[in-house]
């Protein structure tokens, strides 16, 4: 009897009977392995050429006149006759994007335009691109050695927005995260690297994205809490790593980590911010004030006090504040909302339609997220503040930015048109995982609207409700809608709920 068992286990499929059905877990593992090994090629670009590109059957190039508002086909109405380096680059960029916006730069076999002159989302190509980027990367990616956790987050978040089920990466995320965790708390860029707020943020979000209790349990929350205490500064901000710089990115990442992991807020005496005479000074004390100090005379937010307003930091500031309390209360309390909104709105250019990161800088697809994703937070703040506190700022009846412009820029200019797939800064740039993630997030912000539930979802937390944005003309095809992501955590709401619920349920470490 026992010998028979041994033989069968040595030979998984017995000749006479059909192969035994594999358990679902096994199947998942196998699929996972296959995906990873698919990308095991040492040359990244050669994988790209091997990825078969499948497109929905393309209907012929639209025969009826394409409906594109002249806003997106002609240079802006006011142009100064005073060329400088900035204006020259700006007009070159307009020249670069116009053929894409007017459906003139197309490879008909790869790009399908609708009647609005907007191509469809190359979902499959972008999925392939992101899956490749999760695989083994060739040696020239060495500059990314300290940001490997970002690759996890960018790719998994991007895949989730494209509607993919990322749970198949659970085991791999678990193992990868373990190899990046330090015994003193937090995650570094890889084995032997110091824990860093940005890499920790990325790993925690990657874990939330794939979910699963076993995955959540990889995180050493006690170590994380102690480590965060060591980064907290007396001025309210956080160093990004021990001895590293202090900036608003650090504050946002810390707020995300603390709230997602439901960490206690107390500081231990070994924290540089510990105040023996003020026991109420905790991890989140003074963070909002730090954010306030980063608003500049332009209305936007800088990375650290006294620097230039920058789109990426605007999102960090708003996201951070939205985690510290009800956005409608906290955001107007610490920031000059009208000047911030004015600055944010100025980031959108025509004819490009996309956002720039700073005054007089060029559009870049990634600001679709950094700037575009600020609007749901601003709109939520305005909607509630006007109804409750009778503030002078009216609620936004309509969208505060041009959704059509943003969607046009993304679908026309940011999609790689070749076999590579992925999304990019602008047509002259190569796609990469970073841009793919944040352009998709911007696309999601453009396609949805968020409503903040006054009562919250319990635990004093605001409840975000998402709806497709349906006002006015929809220039994109319904099948091209991407999944909505939480306006602060930038991962699907279910992933946020899963992780928060798990740790809240634990009570203590």
């Amino acid at each position, binding site marked *: 009897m026992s010998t028979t068992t041994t033989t069968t286990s040595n030979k998984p499929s017995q000749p006479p009977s059909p192969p035994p059905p594999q358990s679902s877990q096994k199947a998942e593992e196998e699929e996972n392995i296959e995906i*990873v090994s698919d990308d095991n090629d040492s040359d990244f670009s050669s994988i790209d050429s091997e990825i078969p590109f499948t497109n929905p059957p393309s209907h012929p190039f639209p025969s009826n006149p394409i409906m594109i508002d002249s*806003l997106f086909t002609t240079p802006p*109405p*006011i*142009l100064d006759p*005073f060329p*400088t380096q*900035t204006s020259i680059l700006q007009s070159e960029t307009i020249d670069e994007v116009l053929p894409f916006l007017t459906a003139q730069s197309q490879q008909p076999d790869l790009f399908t335009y609708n009647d609005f002159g907007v191509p469809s989302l190359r979902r499959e190509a972008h999925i392939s691109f992101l899956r490749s980027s999760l*695989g083994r*990367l060739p*040696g020239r*990616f*060495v*500059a*990314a*050695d*300290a940001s*490997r956790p970002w690759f*996890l987050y960018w790719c998994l978040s991007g895949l989730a927005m494209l509607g993919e089920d990322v749970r198949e*990466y659970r*085991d791999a*995320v678990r*193992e*990868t995260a373990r*190899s990046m965790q330090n015994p003193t708390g937090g995650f570094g*860029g890889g*084995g*032997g*690297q*110091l824990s860093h707020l940005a890499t920790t943020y990325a790993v925690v979000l990657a874990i939330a994205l794939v979910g699963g209790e076993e995955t959540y349990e990889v995180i050493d929350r006690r170590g994380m809490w102690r480590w965060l205490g060591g980064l907290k500064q007396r001025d309210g901000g956080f160093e990004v*790593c021990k*001895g*590293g*710089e202090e900036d608003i990115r650090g504050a946002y990442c810390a707020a995300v980590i603390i709230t997602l992991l439901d960490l206690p807020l107390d500081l231990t005496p070994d924290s540089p911010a510990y105040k023996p005479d003020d026991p109420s000074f905790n991890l989140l004390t003074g963070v909002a004030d730090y954010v*306030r*100090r980063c*608003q500049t*005379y*332009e*209305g936007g937010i800088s*990375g650290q006090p006294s*620097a*230039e307003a920058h789109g990426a930091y605007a999102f960090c500031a708003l996201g951070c504040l939205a985690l510290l309390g009800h956005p409608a209360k906290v955001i107007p309390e610490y920031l*000059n909302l009208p*000047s911030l909104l*004015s600055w944010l*709105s100025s980031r*959108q*250019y*025509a004819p490009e*339609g996309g956002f720039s990161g*700073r*005054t*007089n*800088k060029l559009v870049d697809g990634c600001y679709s997220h950094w700037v575009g994703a600020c609007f749901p937070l601003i709109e939520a703040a305005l909607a509630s503040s006007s109804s409750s506190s009778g503030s002078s700022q*009216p609620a*936004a*009846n309509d969208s*505060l930015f041009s959704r059509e*412009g943003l969607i046009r820029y993304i679908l026309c200019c940011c999609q790689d048109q070749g076999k590579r797939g992925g999304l990019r800064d602008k047509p002259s740039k190569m796609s990469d995982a970073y841009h793919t993630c944040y352009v998709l997030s911007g696309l999601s912000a453009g396609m949805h609207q968020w409503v903040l539930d006054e009562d919250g979802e319990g635990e004093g937390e605001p409840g975000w409700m998402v709806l497709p944005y349906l006002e006015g003309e929809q220039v994109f095809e319904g099948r091209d809608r991407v999944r909505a992501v939480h306006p602060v955590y930038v991962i699907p709401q279910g992933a946020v709920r899963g992780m928060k619920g798990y740790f809240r349920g634990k009570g203590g470490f």
Partner: protein
Amino acid sequence: MPPKGKAAQKPKAGSSAAATKSPAATPAAPLSTKSTKATPDQQQPQSSTVAEKSKHNFTLCHPFEDLTGKNSLSALPTQADQLVWFASRLVTRLPVRSIGAKGQKDLWKTVNDHSLPPRGFNIRKHQKRQQQHKTADSRGRDIGEYSTKEWELRQEKRVTLSCLQLQSQRFRELRDRQKRGFVDSQTGDTVLVTDSEYLEEKQRRREMDRLKKELYGTQGMGRQGKLALDPEWDDVVPIVVEDPENALAAIAYSPDYAEAMSYLRAVMNSKEYSPRCLKLTEYIINLNPAHYTVWLFRAANIFALKLPILDEITWLNQIALENLKNYQIWHHRHLLVENYYPSISSDPAALSAFAASEREFLTQILAEDTKNYHVWSYRSWLVGKLGTWFNPEELKSTEDLIDQDVRNNSAWSHRFYLVFSDPENCTPGDKYAATEADPKVPGQIVDREVGYAEGKIRLAPQNQSGWNYLRGVLVKGGRELKSVQSFAEEFVMGLGEEGEGGEGEGTGEEVKSSHALDLLAEIYKEQGEKQKADLCLRRLVEKWDRIRGGYWQWRRDGLGLGEVAA
């Protein structure tokens, strides 16, 4: 090995001694045992490869093997031959104990009488040697295929390698003695490894590595990277970390990088701060300048070793110019300045010299990338650290950049910081937010800055940098926006006059700056002229800045005019 009998050791000295040295010297021998008494000068047949020669020698040494084939006695021609063969087999296999000294002696006598070459006795050894000859060289070529010339060259390399290994061993011993504080018995000095000896050893190891690779290829070599070859790193056991098998986004590191990281882990683990660690950080930074951990470790080394900060800054300048987009560099510089500042804070001359040299470098790097965010962030921080807001050179160099490109918003932003964070001109600290009025700002500063902004706006009215600056100055200085109303109106003519069939009519509206309309809308609103404000906003929605239509509409809603007819 044959027993140490005299006869056994040197059966026919001349030939066998030569044979062990080089097979080429082994004489040819016919089958007959009598004639195996060969002489050294006898010519051997032509054999071009090592394998052929080896085979040839084997035949010489084992006159019967070819015939016996599978050790069959019957193949030998005579009984005497059979006896000799038998004796030769037994002599190396039977222990003396089993046959007694006499038996052994008889056996040897038989063998010696026939002058069989002793090396032929041990067939197994021969077979083993043949196996070795079959191995391939580093290029995958069978060593058996070597010509004798090539084979000799290879042997020479092996000898060289052995010598180098011996010398290397001697070096290690010497260093060990130095470590233990040994005293040279002859000179009475403590044993010391000199720098040139280190250097020699380093070169020696490179040579050894080269020879090893040439002789044996790279397989199974283990430690062979640059650091492993460096005698300076002998005492460090690198911490190798392999990514888990299914790791995501794993990078196929170059062997150099992987090795360097494993040494970095080891020295960081042991908290070693030393010149060699500093060198290691430089090496890694060259391979990957975006590695935040190595930068922090570098700073820790510099501070622990109390190295001159200005030297490090000089070194850093070059790295910064080569890596314009890297931001770790700027935090490193920040740490250096934090460390350096206390030593010059009370010396105005040193402080101003340092500020000047920093400014010179910042000007140089901004010329490469005029809007580099990290450079500008560092610059504003540095101004605050050194307290150089009011330094005319600082303001001048910022102005130069605005003159070069009036749309360089980073330069505008820096100007705002210089003027409105100067403790002379404002309330120190962060009592007032950037978007709030500060009562301490002197009127003449506001006048000066308004004038500056207006002058620049006239050059390029649609340049938002100037307008943002102007508005920022007015707000900070507590001025009413209407103080620039007439200035803003310069850029807007005949607003709303375009009308239905506006085009072609002589009095159409002319807007040279949408930002002027924006500001005017706010000015009119402040003054209660809501209709005028609404007109500005409406024209922005309709024509002058349509992409921001949603925002302008929201501003219209804020005027409280109710439903506005389109």
